[in-house]
C-alpha cells in the first residue's frame, strides 16, 4: 500500500474517534478534545493529499494543501482557546462541566 494511503486511513480513524468522543460524552472539555481530534484527522488528510503521486515522485510535495494546514492549525488553536474561555465561563455560571440538565457538579 502507498504510504499516503496509510496516512489517509489514519486520518479517517482520527475523524471517527473524534466523532465518537463528541457523541459519547456530555462533558464539554472532552467534546472539545473530540472536535480537536476530528480537526487533526482532516489536517492529516490534507498532508497525505500533498504527497507526490507514486508514479511521478519528481513533482514533489504540493505546497497548497500544506499552506492550508498551517492556516488551519492556527485557526483551530484560536477556536480552541475561545471555546475554553466559554467553557470556563459556563463552569463559573452553572458550576458544572456537563451539558446534561440537572447533572451533578463536576
Amino acid at each position, binding site marked *: 500500500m502507498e504510504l499516503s494511503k496509510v496516512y489517509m486511513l489514519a486520518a479517517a480513524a482520527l475523524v*471517527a474517534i473524534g*466523532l465518537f468522543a463528541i*457523541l459519547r460524552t456530555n462533558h464539554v472539555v472532552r467534546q472539545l478534545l473530540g472536535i480537536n481530534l476530528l480537526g487533526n484527522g482532516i489536517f492529516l488528510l490534507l498532508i497525505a493529499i500533498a504527497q507526490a503521486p*507514486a508514479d511521478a515522485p519528481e513533482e514533489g510535495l504540493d*505546497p497548497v494543501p500544506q499552506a492550508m494546514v498551517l492556516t488551519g492549525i492556527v485557526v483551530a488553536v484560536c*477556536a480552541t*482557546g*475561545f471555546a475554553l*474561555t466559554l467553557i*470556563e465561563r459556563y463552569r463559573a455560571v452553572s458550576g458544572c462541566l456537563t451539558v446534561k440538565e440537572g447533572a451533578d457538579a463536576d
Partner: protein
Amino acid sequence: MKTNIIASIISLALFGTLAHALIELPTNTSRLTSLVTANLDESGVSNPVTAVLLNFRSYDTLLEMGVLLLALIGAWAVGPRQTLPGHSDDTAMLIVLRLFVPPIILGAAYFLWVGAKEPGGAFQAGAILAGALVLLLITGRATWFHRDGWHRFFLSIGMLVFLSLAAAPMAMGSSLLDYPRSQAKHWILIIETAAMLSIAFTLVALLVGGRPHCKEIAD
C-alpha cells in the same frame, strides 16, 4: 450504554465510508505544485509554502489574522481575566528564565527569517515567541503585558500592517494584495514580522483568557 452503542455504530460507519472513499481516491490530479513552481520566482521567496501563504493565497492569511483577532475579542467579551501569578523569586524558575528566554527569542527570529527559503515563517516563530512570553508571564516578569496600550498595540499590529500593505497596491493602480514584484520579498518580511508579534501576543492573551481588568488599565 445505549449512547455507547449508538455512538460506536455511527463512528464505525463514518470510518468505513471515509476509508472506502479515501482508498478509492485518485491521486492528487489538480497538482497545483507545477503552477507554484513555475511562478515561484515572482513571489519574492523561495520556500513554496511561504509563497502560497503570503503571496499566491495571501487573502487566506489575511483572513486568518482576522480570525485570530476575532477569537480574542470573543474571549474578552465572555468575561474578565483571572488573576495571574505574581512576581516569583523561585531560584530554579529564575535560572530557567535566564537560560531559556534569550535563546527562545533568538529562535523565533531565526524561524521568521528562514521562512523565506526553508520551513519556518510567522506562525512557527509566533508560537515559539509565545513560549517565551508564557515563561515571563507565569513568573510575574511581564507586567507590561497588562498595560493596555502596549497590549492592544501588539495584538493588532499584525492585522493593521497586513491590511495597509494589502490595500497599498490599490492606491498604486494595482489590485488588492498584488505586491510590486521587485519588492515582494521586503513586503512579505514586513508582514511576517508584524504577524509574528500579533500571533505570539494573541496566543498568550488567549491562554490568559478574559479581558484585562479596568484596574490594570488605570495602572
